[in-house]
């Protein structure tokens, strides 16, 4: 049963995962070959004020990292809401919760599949970009692997946004009322942790641990809502 539920969740998230990989691929190619679109897609010239300049300092002054962070946050929100509010919208919660497994198991499985899919989809382009930057002759600037730590910290911090979106989707409240409050907390927490890790890189490990603690807190809230909500 759990295996079947897992496969069901994977089918549910594959659309967002494919979209994420497409977006990351675009960001990656734009960072590595910014003139690719300029040369082959004439419409791209309308977006630019001039010929794009090449990436000189990956992870420090580049076009990939800001785009990656914004895209990851948006995709995390979409994934969290799709897995929680999407079930309610499709009316499938009642069928799901009548399976011979506990509510807690169902929700934990959803979260596990969602966060694993998100982390994998985000890690692939980050690794690809890091290896490109570490290869000599790819950009006219210095590179050390520690330059990528803030990006990895932000990749991990985006799990807060995913958990906040999931909690927002599963709470039985009005959208114009208090339903979005967990997402607001998650987004602000993500912004603060990402900023601290960027300004004080020696605190990256502590920031990651704090994010883990915050994720546990959000998980506790999600399980509380799961146990107390009337899904009928």
């Amino acid at each position: 049963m759990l295996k079947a539920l897992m496969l069901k969740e994977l089918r549910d998230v594959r659309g967002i995962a494919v979209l994420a990989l497409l977006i990351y691929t675009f960001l990656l190619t734009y960072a590595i070959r910014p003139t690719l679109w300029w040369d082959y897609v004439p419409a791209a010239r309308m977006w630019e004020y001039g010929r794009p300049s090449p990436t000189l300092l990956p992870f420090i002054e580049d076009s990939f990292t800001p785009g990656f962070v914004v895209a990851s946050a948006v995709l995390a929100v979409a994934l969290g809401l799709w897995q929680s509010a999407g079930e309610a919208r499709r009316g499938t919660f009642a069928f799901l919760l009548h399976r011979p497994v506990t509510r807690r198991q169902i929700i934990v499985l959803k979260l596990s599949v969602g966060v694993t899919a998100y982390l994998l989809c985000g890690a692939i382009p980050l690794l690809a970009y890091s290896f490109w930057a570490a290869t000599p002759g790819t950009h006219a600037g210095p590179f050390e692997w520690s330059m990528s730590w803030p990006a990895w910290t932000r990749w991990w911090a985006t799990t807060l946004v995913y958990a906040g979106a999931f909690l927002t989707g599963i709470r039985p409240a009005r959208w114009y009322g208090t339903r979005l409050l967990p997402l607001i907390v998650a987004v602000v927490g993500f912004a603060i942790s990402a900023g601290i890790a960027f300004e004080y890189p020696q605190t990256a490990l502590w920031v990651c641990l704090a994010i883990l603690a915050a994720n546990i807190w959000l998980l506790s809230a999600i399980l509380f809502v799961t146990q107390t909500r009337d899904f009928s």
Partner: protein
Amino acid sequence: MTTRTNRLQAMLMAVLLAIGAALAWGMVAGWVVMIILDNVNRSPRQVWESVKVLRDGTPLIKSSSESTGQYTSATYRTLDGAQISERPTGDYLGAAILWAPAGTTPAWTRPSWNRRIRQLFRYEITTEAWYAVHDGNWQGHAYLVGFDVSTKRTIGYVGKHGFRSDAPPVDDQFPVSVGRFGYSGYFDPGQITFGAAYILTDEGLMQIDWDKRSVRFVFQEDNLISMATWAEYEPDDTKPQKLLFFVRSSDSVRLLDLAGNVQEMIALPAELRNGNLSWAPLGDGRTLAWDQGPTVELLWLDATGIVKRQKVDLHLQQNEDSDRKKMTLVSLIAPVPVICGAVSAIVPLGSQTAPGTGSPWTRLAETVADAWPPMLIVFALGVVLAWLCYRRQRQFGMPWTPAWVVFVFLFGLPGYIGYRTHRQWPTCLPCPSCGRTAPRDRPTCCHCHRDFPAPAANGTEVFAENTSAI
């Protein structure tokens, strides 16, 4: 899940929602307050003055004012207060800025990479990209590395012993603290003058000649604090004739030529040794110097010491908001008793007080005496909401009443929103036994503790027990 775990989860959920409500309220209220303040407060908010020196050595005071981002034109007056008209730019004698010793940071901090790398812009060379890279340690080292823009390959490195093809070891790198790395007047290899960069390391003033690909010491001395380049012009010629340097140590300022020879040395009096210095050589062996601050003392110096001194009060009419106004703004943006209490206590206790203004505790008492009305409103709101919470807890017969009441009082309006919305509240109906309104999520009344009567049978009930009789 145990009952205690469930209650703890409920509390955590309420805290989460309270934080969200506080953030949402703060963002909206802050935005509204900023709009109102920008539109209401149109009077000049800030006036600041600075010292300017004419070529004949006469100091003037320049006044500029700013109101909601709009800068007005500057006015000039003499030290006696007489207003004078603005002079052409060429009439003014520039002053070199010699920065104060760089501050210290805790040993455990390490700057981010965007502070450890400086790109050097050499606009005449477009085929090379050069960077200064620091190791991030407080008393650390730096080196330069260059890349070919077209092939993207490394073309060379620069250490303190010169240009080289491989990365320099630590003992060949420039010793420079990270606090001075990349800043003008310290280690700034991006400032190119006549094809060379002049940088201040912990071991002295060095020249990096990009054309000759050489590095040399201009002036070797440990613990120099800051430097400034100085170009001497002919009166009717805009082309500089000589390039000179001012280097500042802990007790003196020296004027050096390109060969590192000391042309002039002036001892720094004690009152000029700590702050940022403005240094204007008057050309007759004297220098006019002053420390930048609200009360400026102009010192005329020569090789023998202080020749003349004159104090000048620079008007800094920055509209200081009163404690009451500040606390009102805090109360509007964050109507949370614990935040208001913390702001009113921490700010005066943690602030540096000027001599003669009393201890931080005195400052705290003054802040409370001035800002008590908005604080009272916030705390009163907290009390009212805590009472509403207590009443609801009694109405629904809920546990942990003291914890919830304290939570709502401390976190005020956001706390009450978190309390009310953290769960779905059961329906309340009058109890048939005692008549009081009681929640119907349990079998007994929470007031009289009697069982609620079963609903009247209507013939459609399905009974699960006693199936063996069928």
